[in-house]
């Protein structure tokens, strides 16, 4: 049994310690907003926060998480009212939508340290998050929208 702190809730899961955090979140805890895209930390669809830092949950063994706070899209403060979620809706960013939760989790850590990011700063920060529909310009617009609204 592995104890975890997920979305401000203490849980225990029965998983081998080398199980990627991604599958623990999705399959053991039913938090399917975090997506599997590549399994090798190359696409960013599985991005979650560990103690507020964006990480690829496919590349972190659940046994290595320890007491750090895990935050998934389901635990983003405010839910639909979170500034980034509101901005994603206002800008209408999604095409297929599969990567967008990872994009939002990645974006959140940028706004935490750079309240008015430039286009270049945003594109650089989002480098590890693939969007095959190529909504990158709308990701920029949405992050800047959220920055303005915040």
């Amino acid at each position, binding site marked *: 049994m592995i104890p975890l702190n997920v979305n401000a809730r203490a849980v225990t899961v029965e*998983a*081998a310690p080398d*199980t*990627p955090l991604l*599958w623990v979140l*999705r*399959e053991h805890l*039913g938090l*399917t*907003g*975090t*997506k*599997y*895209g*590549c*399994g*090798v930390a*190359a*696409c960013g*669809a599985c991005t979650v926060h560990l103690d507020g830092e964006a990480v690829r949950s496919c590349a972190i063994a659940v046994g290595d998480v320890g007491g750090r706070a895990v935050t*998934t*899209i*389901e635990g983003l403060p405010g*839910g*639909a009212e979170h500034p980034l*979620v509101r901005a*994603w*809706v206002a800008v*209408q*960013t*999604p*095409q*297929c*939508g*599969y*990567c*967008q*939760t990872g994009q*939002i989790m990645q974006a959140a850590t940028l706004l935490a340290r750079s309240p008015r990011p430039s286009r270049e700063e*945003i*594109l*650089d920060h*989002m*480098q*590890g*998050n*693939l*969007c*095959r*529909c*190529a*909504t*990158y*310009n*709308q*990701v920029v617009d949405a992050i800047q929208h959220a920055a303005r609204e915040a």
Partner: protein
Amino acid sequence: MSTGTTLTRRGVLAGGLAFTFAFTAGESATAQPGTGALNAYVAIAPDGTITIQAPVPEMGQGTNTALPLIVAEELDADWTKVRIETAPVRAAYDSPIFRSQFVVASLSVRGYWMPLRMAGAQARRVLLDAVAARWGVPVEQLSTEPSTVLHAASGRRMSYGEVARFARAPATLPEITPAALKPISAFRLIGRDVARFDVPAKALGQTMFAMDVRLPGMLHATVARSPRLGARPLSHNGAALLQRPGITHVLPLDQGVAILGERVEAVLAARRALSVQWSPGEGATHDSEAALASYLQDVRDATKPGVQVLRSGEPEQALAGAARVHSAEFTTDYVYHGQMEPLTCVASVTEAGAEIWAGTQWPSLVRDEAARILGIPAERVTVHMLTMGGGFGRRAAIDYAVEAVHVARAVGRPVKVMATREDDVANAHVRPMTAHRIEVGLDAAGRITAWRHRLASDLVVPQLYGRARLEAQRGVDHIVTYHANVAHYDVPATLTQHLYREHGVRTAPWRGIGAGPNAFAVEAVVDDLARQSQTDPLAYRLALLRDARARAVVEAVGAMADWNRPRSGTHLGIGFAKLGLPQLGEALAATVAEVTVDATAGTLRVLRLWCAADVGLVVQPRNAMRQIESSLLWGVSSALTERLTIRDGAVQQGNFTDYEMLRAPETPEVQLRLVGGGEVPLPVAELGLGTVAPAISNAVLAATGKRLAALPFTPDRVRAALAG
């Protein structure tokens, strides 16, 4: 449920694809009292909530909003009261173009345009007839405002919700003819942006993709797919893997080996430990580099006529008599779809039938194939059309759904069959690589007298539609040869020939299909000719374009890009492309790319794209522009980095680490303008793609005088071309 409204289609596909629809008496969809159903598409509840069925699945293209909006327009619905359901898989929801629920070729809005208008108008008519009977007035005296019926003479009004309390669809639904539809000038919804219904759930991670389906008792599975068509598993180490905790089954399939277990992580670990010996299958020695060289030999060998795809005038005669012949060759490599959700399907097979949860572009075929495999009537197969984590043509093939049905039947439990990304790449259904040779005859004054385009590639049609379809088309693979012509340019004699070889490579439609490679070759040659005649490339196109719509997009993009303004350190190139079928209407686009060239590193950077597009009548302007932008950026991605190679019959790439797609930092700024208009919506979602590679190559030509003729423009190729 009864079968609902029947669309009778006269002259569809036959008779020159003329769209003449009439909504006629089908069985009423309201056999069950209290459902509020007025026909197959519309149901209205007493509280005024209007439920509209979206007939095709969503993969990001926005049809789950745009198609119901067309119904709502003719129904005169209050859009704030509309909720949308994804339709079941049933003939009532077939596209008249494909006679199937099938999402390809950017034809959903085009295909459903008239049926959905008819459906909305018919539902409105049912409401009006009910009110006319209740008030004892002629139906002609009634009119509507959004979700309200009016009788102007008496000033009476009744909301749709109130009408729904007593209105019942008659056993024979009223027939609607096109004359009963709204004039375009009266549209309240079409042409004005609304928020897409799918966006909030996507931003919150609440959208149900096939990957997210969980059923009681469900097993997880993944399949090691044979490396090429026809290769079968001869032996494997599955017996050892079955000893692992949590692994329940190892099943040899026709062209793969499935591993099943209670937990996905155990299945994935076992997959890494699985080894399979395969029979050779087709193309066991296929080597993409060698094959591309053979394609070039084919297009050069004039003794090989190939399949004639298009012909006008007397091209051979004109070429033989030309004062000068310009010829050029181009190649494109295999490309992979890279949809973000690895292919996944959930299936459950019981005595009662089969239930399938899939993100698929062709739900009707999934249903029919499942029925055929299981030997049961199609009515006993339920297909849930889930949102796709990207489609782009890959999900027009249904291999992964077929496998899920086989596996679920074999184990008698619900199963989720999920590809690893590595297996998704290894089982790529590629856009065929291509070689092109274009020969242009010119007279003494430099005018074009003939244009011959010889194209060599693998085939897509036999794998998507079956070999009989290819034969019925006299060998013409319309997917690979899409837009391999210069129909909009003033060329008196043209010939397109396709030389194909089959290598056992799995192929599928890929966004824009043949239009991408073909427009690359055609538009590069147009720039070559402009350069030879010392004419500005944009002016040269305007001089050569007959079609007023085509001229308008070229002129518009020139203005947007400020084409004639000198730049310092950056270079402009232009590309023009069309998308669609002549019988249904073609969308047009022209794009200017602003590019920097680092000759030492061999790297190109696309800073900006301007695109002017004519997509006919626009249902949702913002979404249409987003679709075009996405297709433009696919153009950038496939021009700069995307390359899949095959050696010894197997894909050489393994993941997004070595199959490189566009990432955020390389994204150009995009400016778009919709120009033109019309009476019907034209294809949108693939339109920009074909314009980009030629625009980039033409910008490099303008900068250096050297032609980049092989897609993608990788640094080694750029360095070689610039040194040549």
